[in-house]
């Protein structure tokens, strides 16, 4: 047997408040696709940063190709042949693909040479990319390809990918896996970090499971089931949700042909978006982030009041120009995807954060009844099992999942008529995610209209009665969940919901020209 490509032995890393890794050992063989599986906060990211030289371990050793090494910084890691593709891209929007790649490379190469190499690598691995395009014109999937090409140009022996599929359509994930499998077959080891079980089972032949900073299992994921893997990951199987049909009531939210120009230069124009949500149903909006979801949610929540008044109606009342407080008065409550800084003020306590959307503890003249406020926060903490240091714990002191439980709880306990939730379980651990989804379904059963925007198809299929897909600022027609398939929704994510939508868009100028010709 050959020497292991990477071997970690007894790695321990302590932070002031938490032990991120405790006695973690990990062996990656050459040409092996090795998964690191774990919930958020299990210590995956810290471990990767240690391998990539961004963090120094307190204890333990790292060996690369059988030689013990001390990786002091990412440059040293790259010199050894370790490349990493981060979850959040580090690309300059205003530069071209080639210029971005060039920035990270040895300065002895000219830009023309780099451009040539990019084209060559892209062809070799079937990564379709134009090196001369500015990065801001690229989709997220394309940006990731740029990151991967940049990593591959240094001919790595070990490629680390951190949650690479969180921004990709199912089709793009398949393409990525083809590339990764080809790489592995050529002898490059892959370290694949994820909490998506089916992906790991498809791609990887070995898997190290982390929980609470410790290794809880090493296995071949292809011989395991989703259930057995998640048992290793969370220590128990997640509760499965029952989805029963519910009688729907009156239309609560009606969006009529919403057209809205972008607010920021990097935003998306909304075009002709129509949807309705009735009481007692959950409607989902799928799609890759950055296709207009953010803009749509701003227009629905009242954070953007530029829409015409009649374009958004709540319970028959036009609210397009109403501010968030006026919409809340009509029973519209919203859970934004950014928890810290938007859904909650990081430095303020949970009790005070209630006052962003709730005025139960506010008396005449805007007087704050502190006791009542703290009691209300305490009740939410208890009801939604939020792990927090009390009602006055700063929002930023909570983990992402616990803060999300608190924010969801804050909006749910307001007994909304319409609940809009964006990425309800993004970055939330499996247990908390199941709880949040359960709460959303309970609210639906109580007769609330719910609109969920999510990138995770599994989640949407679990929660929703009907699905829309958002792509390039447009919204697909809705499809009943019973009739929807992952393949279909995936195709729609590229904007292909109507056979001729694409061709119509492409040939719009041409047809206008034609019409003019006919008239002439």
């Amino acid at each position, binding site marked *: 047997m050959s020497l292991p490509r990477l071997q970690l032995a007894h790695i321990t890393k302590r932070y002031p408040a938490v032990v991120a890794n405790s006695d973690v050992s990990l062996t990656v063989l050459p040409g092996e696709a090795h998964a690191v599986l774990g919930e958020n906060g299990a210590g995956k990211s810290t471990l990767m940063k240690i391998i990539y030289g961004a963090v120094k371990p307190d204890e333990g050793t790292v060996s690369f190709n059988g030689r013990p090494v001390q990786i002091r910084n990412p440059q040293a890691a790259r010199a050894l042949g370790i490349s990493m593709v981060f979850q959040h891209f580090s690309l300059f929007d205003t530069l071209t693909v080639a210029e971005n790649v060039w920035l990270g490379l040895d300065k002895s190469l000219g830009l023309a040479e780099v451009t040539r190499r990019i084209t060559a690598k892209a062809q070799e691995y079937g990564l379709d990319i134009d090196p001369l395009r500015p990065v801001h014109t690229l989709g997220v999937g394309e940006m990731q390809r740029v990151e991967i090409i940049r990593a591959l140009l240094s001919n790595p022996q070990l490629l680390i990918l951190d949650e690479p599929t969180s921004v990709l359509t199912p089709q793009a994930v398949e393409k990525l896996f083809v590339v990764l499998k080809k790489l592995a077959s050529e002898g490059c080891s892959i370290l694949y970090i994820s909490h998506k079980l089916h992906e790991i089972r498809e791609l990887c032949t070995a898997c190290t499971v982390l929980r609470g900073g410790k290794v809880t299992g090493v296995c071949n994921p292809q011989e395991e089931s989703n259930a057995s893997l998640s048992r290793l990951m969370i220590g128990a199987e997640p509760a499965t949700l029952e989805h029963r049909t519910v009688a729907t009531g009156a239309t609560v939210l009606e969006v009529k042909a919403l057209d809205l120009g972008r607010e920021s230069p990097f935003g998306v124009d909304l075009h002709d978006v129509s949807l309705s949500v009735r009481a007692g149903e959950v409607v989902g909006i799928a799609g890759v982030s950055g296709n207009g979801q953010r803009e749509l949610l701003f227009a629905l*929540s009242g954070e953007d009041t530029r829409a015409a008044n009649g374009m958004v109606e709540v319970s028959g009342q036009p609210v397009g120009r109403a501010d*968030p407080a006026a919409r809340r008065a009509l029973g519209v409550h919203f859970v934004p995807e950014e928890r810290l800084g*938007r*859904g909650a003020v*990081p430095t303020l306590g949970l009790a005070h954060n209630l006052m*962003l959307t709730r005025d139960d503890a506010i008396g005449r003249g805007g*007087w*704050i009844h502190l006791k009542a406020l703290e009691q209300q926060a305490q009740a939410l903490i208890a009801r939604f099992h939020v792990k927090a240091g009390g009602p006055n714990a*700063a929002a930023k002191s909570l983990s992402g999942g616990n803060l999300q439980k608190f924010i969801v709880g804050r909006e749910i306990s307001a007994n909304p008529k319409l609940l809009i939730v964006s990425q309800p379980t993004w970055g939330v651990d499996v247990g908390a995610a199941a709880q949040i989804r359960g709460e959303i379904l309970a609210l639906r059963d109580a007769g609330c209209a719910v609109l969920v925007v999510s990138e995770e198809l599994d989640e949407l299929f679990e929660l929703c009665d009907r699905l829309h897909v958002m792509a390039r600022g447009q919204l697909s027609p809705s499809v009943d969940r019973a009739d929807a398939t992952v393949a279909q929704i995936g195709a729609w994510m590229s904007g292909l919901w109507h056979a001729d939508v694409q061709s119509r868009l492409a040939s719009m100028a041409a047809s206008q020209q034609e019409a003019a010709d006919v008239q002439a």
Partner: protein
Amino acid sequence: MFKLEARPQASKFWSYGSPLLALAITVLIGVALFAALGKDPVKGLQVFFWEPIKSPYALGELMVKATPLLVIALGLAVCFRSNVWNIGAEGQFVIGAVAAGGMALLAGKETSRWIVPVILLAGVLGGMAWAALTALLRDRFNASEILVSLMLVYVADMVLSYLVYGPWKDPNGFNFPQTRTFEAVTQIPRLMTGSRVSVGLLIAIAGAAALWVFLFRTRAGFAQQVGGLAPAAARYAGFSSRKALWVALLTSGGAAGLAGALEVAGPIGQLTPYVPAGYGFAAIIVAFVGRLHPVGMVFSAVLMSMFYIGGELAQSRLGLPKSITGVFQGLLLFSLLACDTLIAYRIQRTVGAK
């Protein structure tokens, strides 16, 4: 060796301890400074920290100077807590003084005592109007309030100079650039005889209490601060950022204008080119050293007032230049900013490599 390590949570202890440590460091550097200048450090410290409090009269003078500092700082705290960087309180102070002075000049022999509240109101409105220029430019054209408010300080100084060198100059004043002395009836009522402390002190303390209630017990105050702490959260909640901007600038402008009115109709008693005494800038330090907290600012205003008085005494007693006051103010702010690092970080002794 030592290294800084991020704390898991901001330290409560150091958020109060930091101003005290900063004061200690300021004193230490002050001692070194006196020694370097060949002055007796003990005497130097005495001038700054003992002379201003050693007699009832001295205490009164301390309060006279602390009053405008506190009034301005209270307004600035609203601004800074809302992330609105009004650096031009000095200008708002000057225009408040001009408006109040103009009103006081209208008073004649028969004017009733009710002119005093009118003078104060004129000061408030003057300061507000000056701050409103900044608010308008920021709101309408997104101009930086830092630059605009600072520039307007110098414009305000020019306005004052124009008036006292021109139309408002005292005809019997031997051509000195100053207005005639205001009628006695315009004098802000003093609290007691034998001291120059006026009702301004009561207004300042009531202001501190009102600010405390506004910030910590009203929803409007909460909304105001959310805009500063997390603008996206304020937008999400539906708290208007434009409203926050106007409230912040009008409050601080009004407070600075009030301080200006209290000064000209109080200790000064006429308009001169020397009305701007730097209170508007010193109040920025007062606000930060007091942690933008109403109670903290009461203490820091007194401290800053000590520096003013100490600086004046240092001129006569020790023969040091007046700029010693500015040196102490700067030292204090500088060490405070440095000490504030301890709130988010702790110093860790790094053990030598094993």
